[in-house]
């Protein structure tokens, strides 16, 4: 059986940065496996700007951001295979992939980094009533069709869901001459970044209707209209509030789901909240030597954070390859309370952790003038005032290793939202 020190599954922003992180840390025998015909992943279709302010201190578009990483991968000679689907990963890190040149191949990896990204929540998962006419797209599918494949998507558009891709597509379609009638959002707040509400909706006078959902899709061959209704506090449509918009297209921007079929086959334990693997502070999953990063781990709001996280995953995989056997470790669990939905990582090893570990998380509601409070057992360690926190934006706290020295008997770390 062929062997590789490190196999990276996925050649998007996470996979590229992870491979580079490992390469910089001294791993030479790396293979990136990518199913598309080019590296860069979803950044290829994200032609809008706003990427790279943290990483490169300048504002780039998605393809430009991807190209910088791809160029580096080429310069350093990190091997990659395109048109290649990973079919299976075993718990002992045998990776089976398929492509048209080699057929099905199984290789033994010293370490694996899972960087498969996420999928859009499809129509079937939303329980939308009505027929199945043409003209209903997830926002990202429409984005790919328009920005990469030169297909027109529609002329009169209703968008359900105010995730960032939906907002970006509202602007994109408007620029291409379509009329975006309305963006309907089930929740009483937007799932997207504030800046996107401003520059994608407000700039073009596109209304955002919060606490609204689609209650009928009209048309049999092609969408002819969409009815939206206001919903009550239990997200149930309120009879009598129906408004029907004539349109030929319905875009769905209703959330992203980490794609973890391969993680499951590897026996990786998944979080029920994030849909991604549970990880320790090394971004290592429950299966030793299997690391993960990017949107397959948890859905990020910024690619810059993905790159940073992925680079650490690559460095940690390199560390694992140098010295895979560590003595039994103490893993301190992180708990979230009072509005914090999850944390990544889920555990921290106070002995082997890096000097600083970034804990990322999201809140489950919009909070104004609250504080994020970090506890080691019952001791308040830090209190950070926050003007606004929203589910659409990721939060983070950085934990320093030296703090742990003062708490040798620590049994739990808690992050809470408090007044």
């Amino acid at each position, binding site marked *: 059986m062929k062997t590789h020190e490190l196999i990276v599954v996925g050649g998007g922003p996470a996979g590229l940065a992870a491979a580079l992180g490992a390469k910089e840390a001294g791993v030479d025998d790396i293979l990136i496996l990518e199913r598309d015909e080019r590296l860069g992943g979803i950044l290829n279709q994200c*032609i809008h700007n706003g990427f790279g302010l943290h990483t490169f201190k300048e504002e780039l578009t998605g393809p430009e951001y991807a*190209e910088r990483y791809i160029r580096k991968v080429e310069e350093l000679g990190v091997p990659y295979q395109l048109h290649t689907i990973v079919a299976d990963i075993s718990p002992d890190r045998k990776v089976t992939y398929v492509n048209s040149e080699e057929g099905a191949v199984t290789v033994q990896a010293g370490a694996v980094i899972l960087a498969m990204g996420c999928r859009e929540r499809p129509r079937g998962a939303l329980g939308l009533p009505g027929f199945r006419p043409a003209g209903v797209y997830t926002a990202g599918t429409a984005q790919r069709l328009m920005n990469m494949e030169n297909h027109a998507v529609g002329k009169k558009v209703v968008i359900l869901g105010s995730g960032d891709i939906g907002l970006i597509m509202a602007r994109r379609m408007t*620029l291409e001459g379509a009329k975006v009638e309305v963006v309907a959002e089930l929740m009483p707040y937007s799932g997207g970044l504030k800046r996107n509400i401003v520059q994608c909706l407000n700039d073009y006078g596109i209304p955002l209707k919060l606490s609204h959902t689609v209650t009928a899709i009209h048309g049999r061959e092609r969408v002819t209209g969409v009815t939206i209704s206001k919903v009550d506090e239990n997200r149930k449509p309120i009879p009598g509030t129906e408004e029907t918009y004539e349109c030929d297209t319905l875009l769905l921007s209703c959330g992203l789901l980490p794609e973890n079929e391969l993680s499951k086959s590897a026996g990786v334990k998944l979080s029920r909240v994030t849909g991604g693997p549970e990880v320790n502070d090394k971004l290592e999953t429950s299966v030793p030597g299997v690391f993960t990063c990017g949107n397959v781990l948890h859905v990020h709001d910024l690619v810059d954070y993905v790159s940073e996280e992925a680079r650490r995953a690559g460095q940690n995989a390199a560390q694992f390859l140098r010295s895979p056997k560590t003595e039994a470790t103490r893993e301190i669990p992180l708990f979230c309370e009072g509005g914090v939905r999850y944390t990544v990582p889920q555990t921290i090893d106070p002995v082997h952790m890096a000097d600083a570990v970034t804990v990322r998380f999201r809140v489950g509601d919009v909070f104004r003038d609250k504080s994020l409070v970090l506890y080691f057992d019952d001791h308040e360690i830090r209190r950070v005032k926050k003007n606004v926190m929203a589910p659409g934006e990721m939060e983070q706290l950085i934990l320093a290793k030296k703090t742990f020295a003062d708490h040798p008997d620590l049994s739990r770390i808690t992050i809470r939202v408090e007044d």
Partner: protein
Amino acid sequence: METRELTCIRCPIGCSLKVTVDGENVTVLGNHCPRGMEYGKKEVTAPTRTVTSSVRVTGGVLPLASVKTVPEIPKEKIFDVMRAIRSFTAAAPVRTGEKLIENIAGTGSDLVATRTVEQK
């Protein structure tokens, strides 16, 4: 004197700005960086945007090359710029950073490719 409440769009943090215009004087509060200061001042005097789109490419491995305006264009010129973008076709190869249209729609800004499209 007029005060406007804005959300900065210069980065994903989206700072809430209070911009006060008093004749020639514009003051910006709530920004966390110099870019926010600049955004607040420009937004109440002469708002600008980066337009991103794509142009058709002939003879390339992809049918489209993504593009952006450099520097930002006046906000009211967005649709003039889009008309110019839609009526333009580039021939492969196209290189990231290549100027495709100079002084697009009379804005003084250039249209620059943001991806490389190799020849087929």
